[in-house]
């Protein structure tokens, strides 16, 4: 706005300003062009009044001048906060986790910003946390490309490190359902046992170790290996 009309007075009355990434440059440019930033405290909020001549007046306490100042404004734009709508229900439908502020949580795995906590479900934009348009668009593209790469593939390759339930030994006790950090195992009543979808399984082995009936095995890091390895290795020490 300052570029269009340099002598226009612009005031930004704010509680707090974050300028991640290159936005710091924008912030500096705005100050250089004379935009005035006024920070207010919660207990001394700015007051907006309609004056008799039809214009709008704003009274705000300026911490620098330590005085109230009055601004006769032609236009006021209110920047409302971004809060998540009730995502709980949708999160349950897709079986994804919410973070502590009720936004959709990104995957805990490193370097996977557009993956949700569930394999094959992606998140982009403000659903993950408040961000500006540019970032939303770039995230949307990333999510779309990840989705396409899944859908286009004729078959999906999956590493061997996955847990597998042996229905014969499964006591259907729900331990794996309760303890899997990603909520992947479920009781498949047609099998009468728990079932772990190999594509979803992240191969951490926590369910294998928790299973009381030793019904889940993981060939990549099997019980036989873990039990016999010490004996074999320790023989190498003279």
């Amino acid at each position, binding site marked *: 706005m300052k570029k269009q009309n340099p002598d226009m007075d612009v005031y930004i009355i704010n509680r707090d300003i974050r300028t991640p990434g290159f936005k710091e440059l924008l912030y500096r440019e705005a100050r250089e062009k004379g935009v005035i930033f006024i920070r207010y405290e919660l207990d001394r909020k700015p007051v907006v009044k309609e004056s008799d001549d039809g214009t709008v007046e704003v009274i705000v306490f300026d911490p620098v001048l330590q005085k109230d100042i009055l601004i006769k404004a032609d236009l006021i734009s209110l920047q409302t906060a971004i809060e998540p709508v009730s995502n709980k229900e949708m999160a349950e439908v897709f079986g994804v986790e919410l973070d502590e502020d009720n936004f959709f949580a990104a995957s*805990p*795995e*490193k370097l996977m910003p557009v993956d949700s906590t569930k394999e094959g479900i992606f998140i982009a934009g403000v659903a993950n946390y408040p961000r500006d348009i540019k970032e939303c668009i770039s995230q949307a593209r990333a999510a779309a490309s990840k989705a396409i790469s899944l859908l286009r593939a004729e078959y999906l390759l999956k590493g061997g*490190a996955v847990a597998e339930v042996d229905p014969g030994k499964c006591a259907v006790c729900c331990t794996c359902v309760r*303890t899997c*950090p990603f909520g992947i195992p479920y009781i498949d009543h047609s099998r009468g046992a728990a079932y772990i979808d190999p594509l979803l399984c*992240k*191969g*951490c*082995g*926590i369910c*294998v*170790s*928790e299973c009381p009936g030793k019904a889940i095995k*993981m060939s*990549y*890091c099997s*019980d036989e290996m*873990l*039990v016999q*390895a*010490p*004996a074999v*290795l*320790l023989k*190498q*020490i*003279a």
Partner: protein
Amino acid sequence: MQEFKPKIVAFYCSNCASSAAEISNKLGLFLPENIKLINVPCTGRIEILHLLKAFENGADMVYVVGCQEDSCQYINGILKLKKRVAHVKNMLEQMGIEPQRLEVFSLYAGKGQDFVNIANEMLNRAKQLGPIY
């Protein structure tokens, strides 16, 4: 008397701990010969039985190296393991074995030097404690 060479088994997870191990290799630091490494996808994979079997098969010292409690890729693997280690320590005590023969550590990925320091610390403790049987 032939000098006591402790036998030590170390479990380490393939995230924070293994990257620390790689860094220690790059720094040219190598683990003492007495320490045998067993890799697991996550420390949460290690069961009470696996810890006991190591002792049963002659290990004088067993320790586990895993991620920080709040940065485990599988969220609560290290937490579950720490509970199991506490349980096994209690069992060892009841069986007349020094609980200090079992230990667990949380490492950051970049801590190559710590990976080796831990190994040496465990070696010294094993020497002090002497053979298990």
